[in-house]
């Protein structure tokens, strides 16, 4: 098959860059007409900063790409940001959000003092009082306390929270918002390879011949990564881009092939590819025989690792998925399935699959993750640079903090499980805890946690105090009318929120704590390609805002002072006791002393031994200070700390034994083999019907990150994309008698919102599908979404909710 479709693709990078450049110019023009607005200068390396500006490295605060920026500081303020040319991830380039990242510090409404609810308002209190209030709530009922964090927690912050809960309170009710965006990727990796996180890395984008994006829109969500591929095409390299999705996006316009599928069509498509690989004899028999087993769901005992099946079983199950049957199930024409199978059947090509929320937010998210890994394994498109199935993350440390530190209700650091006695013992040993301190029972996952918090105590809602750090569940949880809004009526429930700005979550908070953010504190992140990054505090936080990590340690110490046993290790010392170079205990629970030592370094070095338990070895802290991140496993050789580009592959991964070629050394079947899964196609949890005839997909836009609590405070970005909208196909708009700019009432079985229509706008949904981005705090699309979850990952599906629309005439 020829991959040289047309020379028109050579112009793609230019088009992409021009579009980004125009978006930035337009945003800046809008700002410059508002003379009163403070404008953060945006510098690039053609400009020389005026005056005495100090430059230091930091990873960008936003997505999981992990771009590095150079931060310019003058007179105690961040005055400029530039792309870091020394960073391998972005090589000096930034996206429109990254160029403006410095401005997130300087929104007009930063939270600067602790606030306690009093009637309908709040009163200012001291930190002393705030810490006392939290300690009171925890002491009153430690088992009814829960901690909700995020993939924006730095590695040390997440580690401290994890140790505080599981090692201190013997309480496993700690879970992150990353449960909502990448938990299915985790279960997909675990069920396939026996260990989490991608084998490949971003270098695959520089080597692949074919890039398949499964429900993924990197042109808007990971633009710097997408530009790496576009850049190759502009140099004349042949790269075939394929978009598999439920609506056309900016990514689609750069792709040679677009496969428009129905919701859950991906399950059928992956099975269809496997069917043709077997039928055509183009699967990689040698690879499969050497390195793979087969698995299927165990319906009599549903579990993540399923049941073993043999090759004949697998073949007979997959036999059903003919191109014609797949076309019927997915809506994708049979010839496009054949095209994909031909690509996978060609051993001379290198194929990279990318996905993010489109595949993970799926009530069969684990299954579709398994299937995509499976077609790579079945075809042998694995183990070379450019041949990799790779999930991306949307948050800067979803991998480093959530997946590696394990801030999940069932996990311990280093890929360990609370339910495993040996794992608990080992963890207790490292944490110097008395034996039996760690609770064996997994805590509540995110959806359960919020359901328990938003249910009356007498009706079984046994979470009564919930502390939120570094995230905005009042906007990002699904089905808000069930999982968040009921809190307003539950007066015995107590919500603590640590954040930097007022948000949809703080509106129901009983106690609001002002946090330091990004370069106002030391930090470490771990990005989507296993790269661990470090930065130092560069400016002071405003007012009384303080580090989240300090907040956790201060509460722990207050409980220690009050004699709570859990806050002592087995020698009676404070759980977070830290000493200076002279061996003297530093009172880090006092804010004035918190930066007397590097708390991040102390916590990271304590955590580091955990990283070796699953061969995800991290280097000493000092190495990360010197580098723009390193991809684990990082091992020392001849005095050098060496990173790893490909896992499980001889010559790349230091843990693969000589002569093995490929070795899945954490195989769930203990035979160094990966699992190729069969999963059947199943319909979505909710489908359109006569009452709710349209399917709603939610997602993101280029200009805003996550719930927009930071980017909506950047004037340039806010003006470029001021508010949410509903994207509709012209046929649906015509049927509803609405045009762009009209207001419609969107209703689901769970809630309703009023919102403006955009016909053929940023994206192009097909007839029967609508799209609403979730960044807008004034239009909470998650009042409409479904809270059905994947049975293994417990991740909800935000992409397929049935809705109806009605024109609003007044």
């Amino acid at each position: 098959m020829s991959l040289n479709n047309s020379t028109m693709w050579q112009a793609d990078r230019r088009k992409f860059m021009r579009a980004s450049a125009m978006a930035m110019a337009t945003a800046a023009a809008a700002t410059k007409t508002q003379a009163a607005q403070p404008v953060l200068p945006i510098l690039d390396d053609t400009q020389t900063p005026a005056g005495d500006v100090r430059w230091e490295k930091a990873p960008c605060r936003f997505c999981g790409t992990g771009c590095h920026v150079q931060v310019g500081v003058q007179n105690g303020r961040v005055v400029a940001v530039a792309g870091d040319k020394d960073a391998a991830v972005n090589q000096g380039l930034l996206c429109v959000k990254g160029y403006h990242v410095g401005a997130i510090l300087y929104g007009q409404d930063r939270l600067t003092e602790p606030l306690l609810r009093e009637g309908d308002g709040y009163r200012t209190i001291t930190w002393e009082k705030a810490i006392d209030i939290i300690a009171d709530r925890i002491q009153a009922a430690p088992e009814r306390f829960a901690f909700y964090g995020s993939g924006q927690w730095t590695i040390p912050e997440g580690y401290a929270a994890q140790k505080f809960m599981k090692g201190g309170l013997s309480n496993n009710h700690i879970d992150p918002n990353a449960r909502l965006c990448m938990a299915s990727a985790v279960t997909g990796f675990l069920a396939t390879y026996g260990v989490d996180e991608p084998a490949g890395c971003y270098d695959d984008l520089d080597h692949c011949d074919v890039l398949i994006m499964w429900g993924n829109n990197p042109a808007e969500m990971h633009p710097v990564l997408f530009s790496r591929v576009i850049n190759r095409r502009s140099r004349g390299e042949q790269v075939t881009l394929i978009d598999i999705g439920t609506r056309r996006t900016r990514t689609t316009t750069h792709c040679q092939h677009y496969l428009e599928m129905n919701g859950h069509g991906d399950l059928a498509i992956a099975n269809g590819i496997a069917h043709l690989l077997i039928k055509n004899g183009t699967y990689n028999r040698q690879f499969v025989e050497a390195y793979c087993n087969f698995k299927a769901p165990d319906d009599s005992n549903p579990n993540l690792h399923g049941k073993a099946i043999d090759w004949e079983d697998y073949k007979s199950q997959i036999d059903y998925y003919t191109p014609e049957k797949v076309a019927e199930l997915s809506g994708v024409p049979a010839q496009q399935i054949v095209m994909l199978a031909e690509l996978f059947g060609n051993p001379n090509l290198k194929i990279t699959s990318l996905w993010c929320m489109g595949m993970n937010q799926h009530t069969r998210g684990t299954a579709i993750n398994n299937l995509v890994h499976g077609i790579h394994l079945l075809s042998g498109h694995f183990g070379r640079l450019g041949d990799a199935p790779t999930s991306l993350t949307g948050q800067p440390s979803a991998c480093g903090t959530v997946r590696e530190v394990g801030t999940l209700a069932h996990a311990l650091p280093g890929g360990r499980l609370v339910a495993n006695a040996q794992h608990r013992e080992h963890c207790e040993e490292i944490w110097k805890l008395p034996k039996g301190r760690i609770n064996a029972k997994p805590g509540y996952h995110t959806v359960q946690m919020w359901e328990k918090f938003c249910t009356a105590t007498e009706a079984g809602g046994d979470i009564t105090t919930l502390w939120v750090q570094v995230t905005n569940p009042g906007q990002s949880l699904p089905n808000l009318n069930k999982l968040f809004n009921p809190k307003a009526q539950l007066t015995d429930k107590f919500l603590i929120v640590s954040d930097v700005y007022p948000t949809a979550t703080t509106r129901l908070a009983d106690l609001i704590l002002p946090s330091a953010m990004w370069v106002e504190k030391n930090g470490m992140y771990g990005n989507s390609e296993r790269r661990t990054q470090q930065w130092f505090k560069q400016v002071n936080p405003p007012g009384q805002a303080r580090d989240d990590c300090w907040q956790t340690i201060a509460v722990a110490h207050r409980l220690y002072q009050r004699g709570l046993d859990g806050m002592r290790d087995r020698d009676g010392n404070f759980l977070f006791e830290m000493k200076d170079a002279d061996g003297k205990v530093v009172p880090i629970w006092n804010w004035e002393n918190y930066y007397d030592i590097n708390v991040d370094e102390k916590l990271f070095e304590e955590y580091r031994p955990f990283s070796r338990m699953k061969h995800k070895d991290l280097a000493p802290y000092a190495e990360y200070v010197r580098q723009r991140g390193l991809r684990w496993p990082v091992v020392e050789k001849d005095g050098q700390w060496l990173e790893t580009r490909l896992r499980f592959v001889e010559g790349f991964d230091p843990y693969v034994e000589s002569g093995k070629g490929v070795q899945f050394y954490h195989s769930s079947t203990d035979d160094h083999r990966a699992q190729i899964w069969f999963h059947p196609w199943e319909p979505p949890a909710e489908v359109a019907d006569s009452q709710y005839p349209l399917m709603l997909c939610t997602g993101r836009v280029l200009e805003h990150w996550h719930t927009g609590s930071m980017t909506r405070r950047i004037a340039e970005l806010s003006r470029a994309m001021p508010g949410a909208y509903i994207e509709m196909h012209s046929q649906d708009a015509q049927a509803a008698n609405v045009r762009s700019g009209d207001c419609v009432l969107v209703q689901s079985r769970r809630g309703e919102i009023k919102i403006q229509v955009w016909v053929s706008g940023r994206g192009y949904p097909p007839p029967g599908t609508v799209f609403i981005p979730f960044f807008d705090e004034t239009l909470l699309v998650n009042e409409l979404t479904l809270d059905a979850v994947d049975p293994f990952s417990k991740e909800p599906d935000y992409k397929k909710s049935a809705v109806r629309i009605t024109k609003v005439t007044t």
Partner: protein
Amino acid sequence: MISSVVARLTESEALSAVLAVITEWPQVEIGQAVQGIALPLTFETGSAEEMELLHDRLRGIEGVQFVDVVCVYF
């Protein structure tokens, strides 16, 4: 090389005259003016020298008060 710039005009009445000049330039893409006085533009050139020259030419047009370079892509 692509640059992202904003031309700030002295007054909104100058917009049509400025547009009349720069629409002749093949390297320029013109965005939607904001309040008639802030005109977003992108320039694409083969070299930094050519870029500088274009910026200078833009500054020299009657009705352009100043030019802000927002960023440059290489």
